[in-house]
């Protein structure tokens, strides 16, 4: 990993991007803006599953409304994040917190894909019973996103 990180650091693309002053703040700004869209979508979806917000709208409709938005935001986060890794590989690839963050994101994505997406099928049908564990999934998902943000901010300090 160390040698890969060194090689990445020395590539022409990494060097050019690193030496252009506005690139890193620009990419980080895009990363935070996309993060805000993700957090807004996750908040409404997860609190709906937890039974706190928008309880008059059926779960399937709420998940459907935010599902593609969550993945679009994740795509922008992945692209801007990958460029930031490319620019400063040493800060991330050898950092336990970075990999913890990746693990948390994968878990949240898995929860969204495996447990929330199937509920879209019941869109518009408020009478359709939902799994009893879904409240827990909502709280857990929200917690995981918050933990991932904490890890993300701490990468700069470790």
């Amino acid at each position: 990993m160390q040698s890969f990180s060194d090689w990445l650091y020395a590539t022409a693309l990494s060097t050019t991007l690193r030496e252009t002053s506005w690139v890193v703040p620009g990419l980080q700004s895009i990363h935070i803006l996309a993060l805000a869209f993700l957090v807004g979508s996750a908040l409404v979806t997860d609190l709906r599953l937890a039974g706190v917000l928008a309880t008059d709208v059926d779960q399937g409709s709420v998940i459907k409304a935010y599902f593609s938005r969550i993945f679009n935001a994740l795509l922008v986060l992945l692209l801007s994040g990958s460029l930031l890794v490319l620019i400063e590989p040493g800060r991330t690839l050898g950092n336990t917190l970075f990999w913890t963050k990746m693990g948390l994101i994968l878990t949240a994505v898995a929860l969204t894909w495996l447990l929330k997406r199937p509920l879209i099928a019941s869109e518009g049908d408020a009478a359709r019973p939902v799994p009893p564990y879904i409240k827990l999934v909502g709280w857990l998902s929200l917690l995981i996103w918050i933990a991932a943000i904490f890890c993300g901010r701490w990468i700069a300090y470790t």
Partner: protein
Amino acid sequence: MNIEAIFQRIYDLPFADAIRQSSSLFPILESIHVIALTLVFGTIAIVDLRLLGIRLHRSSAKSLIAELLPYTWGAFALAVVSGGLLFSSNAVLYAQNAQFQAKMVLILLAGINMLAFHSTVFRRIADWDAQGTPPAAARLAGLSSIALWSAVIVCGRWVGFTLSPF
């Protein structure tokens, strides 16, 4: 007392000193600030998109605003407290920082935009709430809000590149 002396007194406050002395308080406050600001902009953006005619989980803009506003204000309060504490740790230099000043002006403008919306077109919301596309004044308020809050975030991130923590 001149304005610089006020910022110096903020800098000298015991909790500002505690943040400077600690290796973990600043990043903890920053993490809380990031979570708070993404909640602020994330919830505002859902309302702004509805004002632009893009519907997410419910069609009534009035219900959507009533439903999300408490979360926006709660997160905003958290952002102000965490941001205020971060500011205190290096108050004099932050106050002189152009990006920080721009960020404060932009937050003020976003507030004025919100006030203008709530005191004009929002008062007639019953007339247009059922329409998919709100009137031009509401669309303008939504677009301005997204633009202003995005600029706030960009300036905020930029502050960190012009000024290292204390």
